[in-house]
């Protein structure tokens, strides 16, 4: 897609790998201090809070445990060491792949992430694909006749959806499709009682959460494509294409959409924070076994090792998304380049 956008009709056109790689390298160098600062901030906030790691680790068992065993746990966890020492220990073991143990999941944090990240990626990819396809299609149709009924209905719906919380949409979708119509399952990854994860099961269980997450992301894509295409329709290249007698679909899709999609391309990567926000809510509503639902569980039971690791992971995802969107933008619009 991006190659096609970059230059028309040059099948053998080579991507500018060199500048792209240099930009990626520069950004990685800049991202390292940001991630370091975020990990330190996470430890500093926990340090300033009344949160007690020993209590969180032992849970209700801690209420009846003897003082000696509590002290033993305290020493084992190393929570009496100064903030910087604890942060440094966490960081060095994190680099070797040891992120500590999750108290709520009762397994190593790295295993929790490895088990769940794939399901989150599947949900996010399905939702994103839906939002982009539907947003582009609706945006082009609405931009074609600004102020027409389709434009008005779709735009009002977009602003309303933008204001609607994703968890609320999810609950209403469960009520309609799982309870009233009974066509789709209400949550989880497989039917209750079935331990085997089959393709059919996952596919039917994916429909509702992906649709809700996608629809909660839809307004932005729709409004940006609509604005971009409508602006492009007023510009000279489109007028020129019309004057040459090109057919309406070619003008609309070949010329107006191509330049109107530019602002949306930058959005694809920079929408990662909103995608994570939506996933936190949607995965919880639908009991989807992803890392966002695990984040909420970790937060409810104050599971610091898991919560810290997932916060850092999400930040890394945001930084990668930003880089991706800048690379796409540079590819789509050579004037921008890869200097950022």
């Amino acid at each position, binding site marked *: 897609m991006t190659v096609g956008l970059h230059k028309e009709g040059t099948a053998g056109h080579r991507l500018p790998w060199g500048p792209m790689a240099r930009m990626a390298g520069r950004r990685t160098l800049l991202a390292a201090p940001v991630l370091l600062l975020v990990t330190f901030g996470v430890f500093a906030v926990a340090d300033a809070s009344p949160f007690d790691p020993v209590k969180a680790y032992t849970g209700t068992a801690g209420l009846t445990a003897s003082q000696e065993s509590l002290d033993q746990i305290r020493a084992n966890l190393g929570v009496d060491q100064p903030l910087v020492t604890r942060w440094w220990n966490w960081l060095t073991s994190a680099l070797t792949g040891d992120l500590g143990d999750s108290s709520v999941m009762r397994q190593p944090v790295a295993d929790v992430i490895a088990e769940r990240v794939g399901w989150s990626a599947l949900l996010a990819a399905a939702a994103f694909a839906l939002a982009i396809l539907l947003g582009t299609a609706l945006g082009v149709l609405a931009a074609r006749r600004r102020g027409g009924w389709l434009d008005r209905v779709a735009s009002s719906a977009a602003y309303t959806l933008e204001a609607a919380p994703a968890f609320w949409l999810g609950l209403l979708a469960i009520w309609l499709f799982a309870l009233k119509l009974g066509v789709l399952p209400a949550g989880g990854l497989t039917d209750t009682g079935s331990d085997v994860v089959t393709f059919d099961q996952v596919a039917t269980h994916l429909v509702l959460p992906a649709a809700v997450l996608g629809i909660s992301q839809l307004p932005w894509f729709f409004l940006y494509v609509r604005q971009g295409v409508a602006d492009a329709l007023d510009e000279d290249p489109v007028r020129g294409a019309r004057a040459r007698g090109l057919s309406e679909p070619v003008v609309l899709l070949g010329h107006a959409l191509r330049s109107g999609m530019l602002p949306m391309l930058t959005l694809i990567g920079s929408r990662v924070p909103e995608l994570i926000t939506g996933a936190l809510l949607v995965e919880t509503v639908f009991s989807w076994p992803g890392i966002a639902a695990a984040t909420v569980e970790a937060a*409810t039971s104050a599971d610091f090792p898991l919560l810290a690791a997932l*916060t850092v992971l999400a930040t890394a995802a945001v930084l990668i998304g930003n880089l991706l969107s800048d690379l796409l933008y540079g590819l789509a619009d050579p004037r921008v380049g890869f200097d950022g």
Partner: protein
Amino acid sequence: MADRTWTSHGRTRRSTRTVRVSASALIVAAVVLAVLIVPPIVQLDEQAVDLSQKLLPPSWEHPFGTDDVGRDLLLRCVYGLRISLLVGVVAALVATVVGTLVGAAAAAFGGWTDRIVMRLVDTFASVPHLLLGIFIVAMFRPGVWPVVASVALTHWLSTARIVRSEVLSLRSRPFIDAAISGGSSRWRVTARHLLPGVLPQAGLAAVLMVPHAMWHESALSFLGLGLPSHQASLGNLVQTARSSLLAGDWWPTLFPGLFLIIPTLAIAGLAGAWRERINPRRRSELML
């Protein structure tokens, strides 16, 4: 041809815009009146439990129906909106003050201070807002203040950026040079010339932040990480309605959500009109 379509569209759009702005103003006024006046006048206990009245569908007596312990949902929604609005306004005010001070300081001092402060802002901004809020609340909960603090701490970044760029653009104007060459001190220039120029933008950002902060608080409350359940905000209402919804009763879920959406749209409509007033040249259709 382009001119003609613009004019005809411009006219229809202007009139629908007037309708939209008036409707928004009416809704905002109704919301403010409802949350201020209903609690002292109605004298009903919105917490009063009546199990013989539980889960009644919407009717004339209970326009929004009743919840799973027989409480009137219209009353619960008004009280919930009151709490959500209060948290939203306080959080937005705190975030605006912090953002304005940080942004103005970064622009006024410039140089290394500016660079370091804005780098910190970028770092803060690269953690997804709701996740950062969840983290703060998880460490400091339970209570109302952790929620307010977490919403405020995740919302000041955009204000800081807006105020900084606004101060930078004001500082290059001739009247600032005139004031400085007239012998005004740095503080006097900041207080008399820069801040008054920045306040409309900061105020607009604050107004737009209120629905966002309400949305944030609702999400936290829905996840069970927000306000304590005796201070039921709209998010808490949706959270407690979940079991009724899974039993097939939709109204305890539907109405609190509408109470969040409609004021959000109204505030956005008013803020859009305000933005056109202070930035007439940047009449963007995207009120995002």
